[in-house]
């Protein structure tokens, strides 16, 4: 698996472009690698991770910069192509590169809603916690580096996949197991005084807790959701976005007075603090608007949302919610205009499945022949949208 196809390198010279059509890279010249064989063929001066220096993402892992860029553009098909190409041409030389590529592959497949294929790829993995995936198992490649080379996202995807395949209970079990695992790592890194890692693992703890919160909320399991969000707030009591979400949860199950009290707390944070960034002001404005929505004072809600949009015209939550309020004010035409203009003005911010679902509901109400309007929208979407956009949301 770990065949070395790149020529020996001098650490000071830039890495040569990998040339997939090079005559050297025929399968016959490549041999399966044992650690000793590798040691003898590599230059003793150069193993990127050992002297801890890499001058670009690409030096860390083959073509990583490009993979990263493609992921931010939502070009998941291109990523899958890159991965199969790199594998076919044996461009990946180090164990961690294979893991990174596998993670990208599973991520891409899951994003493209091909979860059974993603699950299949995950089955090819060894036990995460075995020696296969530890740096110290390959001292020639990673001298002085210790620990697990498994990308955390791969663990997370492994936990998530059952939910994508309809097995929610298994998914939840795996996520809770993952949470325990993360907490063990926090304790471990604390005892080893690895502060940077402690911070990172604590971030991962909040990540998994947030993910669990989303799952429980989606299933309206409010008791456990409240417990989780309380735990998150304990760790970040002054995060206005987090506290606002507590307010949304309270609104979701109907505790309006509780939600108002929570939003007041967030507003106090804005008034007391020095941070008067637009983001914060808009957060407070949107919270106020929600209180108006609950009280059915849609006109007041629209005014709040308009202030938000004036401060930041890419505030898509304000745009979407304003349109809904206009509809509740019987102004379906303007509601549609607001949505359509946002898609035109700030397409990459505005194009999300929920906004499209709302717009299509409005089309269905407004036009007897709504299929035409939806088809036009769909055509535009296919030109602009990323690979992972779920166009079934147009219900055509």
């Amino acid at each position, binding site marked *: 698996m770990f065949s070395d196809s790149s020529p020996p390198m001098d650490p000071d010279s830039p890495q040569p472009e990998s040339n997939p059509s090079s005559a050297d890279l025929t399968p016959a010249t490549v041999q399966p690698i044992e650690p000793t064989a590798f040691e003898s063929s590599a230059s003793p001066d150069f193993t990127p991770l050992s002297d801890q220096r890499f001058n670009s993402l690409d030096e860390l892992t083959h073509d990583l910069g490009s993979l990263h860029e493609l992921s931010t553009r939502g070009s998941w098909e291109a990523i899958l192509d890159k991965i199969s190409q790199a594998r076919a041409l044996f461009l990946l030389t180090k164990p961690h590169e294979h893991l990174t590529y596998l993670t990208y592959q599973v991520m891409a497949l899951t994003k493209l809603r091909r979860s059974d294929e993603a699950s299949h790829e995950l089955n090819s993995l060894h036990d995460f916690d075995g020696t296969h995936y530890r740096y110290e198992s390959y001292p020639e490649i990673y001298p002085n580096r210790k620990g697990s080379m*498994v990308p955390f996202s791969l663990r997370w995807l492994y936990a998530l996949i059952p939910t994508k395949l309809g097995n929610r209970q298994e998914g939840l079990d795996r996520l809770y197991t993952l949470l325990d695992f993360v907490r063990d790592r926090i304790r471990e890194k604390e005892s080893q005084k690895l502060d940077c890692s402690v911070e990172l693992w604590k971030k991962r703890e909040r990540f998994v807790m947030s993910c669990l919160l989303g799952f429980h909320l989606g299933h309206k399991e409010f008791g456990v959701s409240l417990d989780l969000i309380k735990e998150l707030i*304990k760790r970040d009591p002054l995060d206005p976005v987090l506290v606002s979400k507590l307010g949304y949860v309270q609104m979701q199950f109907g505790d309006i007075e509780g939600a108002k009290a929570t939003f007041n707390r967030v507003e106090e944070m804005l008034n007391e603090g020095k941070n008067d960034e637009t983001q914060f002001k808009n957060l407070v404005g949107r919270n106020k608007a929600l209180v108006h929505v609950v009280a059915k004072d849609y006109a007041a809600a629209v005014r709040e949302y308009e202030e938000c949009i004036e401060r930041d015209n890419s505030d898509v939550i304000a745009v*979407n919610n304003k349109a809904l309020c206009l509809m509740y004010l019987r102004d*379906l035409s303007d509601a549609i205009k607001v949505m359509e203009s946002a898609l035109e003005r700030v397409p990459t911010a505005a194009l999300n499945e929920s906004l499209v679902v709302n717009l299509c509901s409005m089309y269905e109400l407004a036009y007897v022949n709504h299929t035409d309007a939806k088809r036009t929208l769909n055509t535009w979407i296919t030109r602009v949208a990323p690979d992972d956009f779920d166009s079934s949301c147009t219900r055509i």
Partner: protein
Amino acid sequence: MSSTATQGPHSLAFRVMRLCKPSFHVDPPLRIDPFDLLSGEDFSDDPSSASLLRRHLSSTDAVDSDLSYRNRFLINHPTDPIGLSGLLLLPQSFGAIYLGETFCSYISVNNSSTSQVRDVTIKAEIQTERQRILLLDTSKSPVESIRTGGRYDFIVEHDVKELGAHTLVCSALYNDADGERKYLPQFFKFVVANPLSVRTKETTFLEACIENHTKSNLFMDQVDFEPAKQWTALRLHDQQHPPTSDLAGLIPNPPVIIRSGGGIHNYLYKLVPSSDVSGQPKFQGSSILGKFQITWRTNLGEPGRLQTQQILGAPVSRKEINMRVVEVPTAIHLNRPFSASLNLTNQTDRQLGPFEVSLTQDESQMEKPVAINGLQKLMLPRLEAFGSNDFQLNLIASKLGVQKIAGITALDTREKKTYELVPEMEIFVESD
């Protein structure tokens, strides 16, 4: 909602959408922190690796791409993985509707023909088994015209107070392009179901069990018991937990949320006779205890409210005759007769009796674990008003272990009324 229109080509058509409150979109996204993908999980054990990676990542961030969907993949704020951004979704289906809720609907009349229609009178009504309720009527000021491709919109609201089948009848009376006066009725049916059942049990305590029959979880905003005037009611609930200090009062008490589809919550009240009611208890007759006012909320505070009917208490009367076991020997052995002391009390203000005390025979003719030994009937003389009589019964136990002295009755031979031994007494039967 299902709709049926009349025959014949119509220029107009009704389109209807139920407007309950919008809901929060909840969908945990596939978004990550690049550190978790681009390197191994223990990569940052070496701080210089971590800072190098961070530097390389931020330099790629600086390149602002036109078609960037980074927010669909990279985490911006730590709470992004929850998938609760505050974005609202329109109701995606009609859903279920329950008694006590408010039915609200957006109604749009569209002109899908190629010419204008004029003089449009629109009506919207709710038709139930019992009545027809008018929600909207523009006949006093009809809509002058609706151009081709145009629309006239309105929103109607109705508090649902009846169960069962409801029909939203939308009708339009208009002049079409040929000047013909046409009538378009459209019918949208829905069914109103019962959201809750309230079962009560009481002695001097009233326990109400509220069961949720809806498809949503119900946040119990208010459950108030309004006692009838001869009672005062005190709500009993478990101790409130003190608010955790670091949250400084956020979510002080766990909210009462009744789970959808059969979840229950119990409410307990202690009922005390109000001070102005006369002291002497009655024999028979039920008493009205009071009724419940229940307000609940669902998604985004959507309210519903119900009142129960009057709840009746069990008769507060005392029994005329009270028969009970006063004493049994400390050791009772299998198949060895023992003597139990009993008491018969006349709780009325007149003479009752004489009485015949015996063991009831049940249909199965099975041997009772504790039976009367010897003569199966004991005669007791008449009792004066409020008088009582202590007597002995010779009993024998035929089974080991915990057994009950039960099934003993006293028959008033004159009035032919039977009184049971209450309460049943438990004894422990040892072996010889």
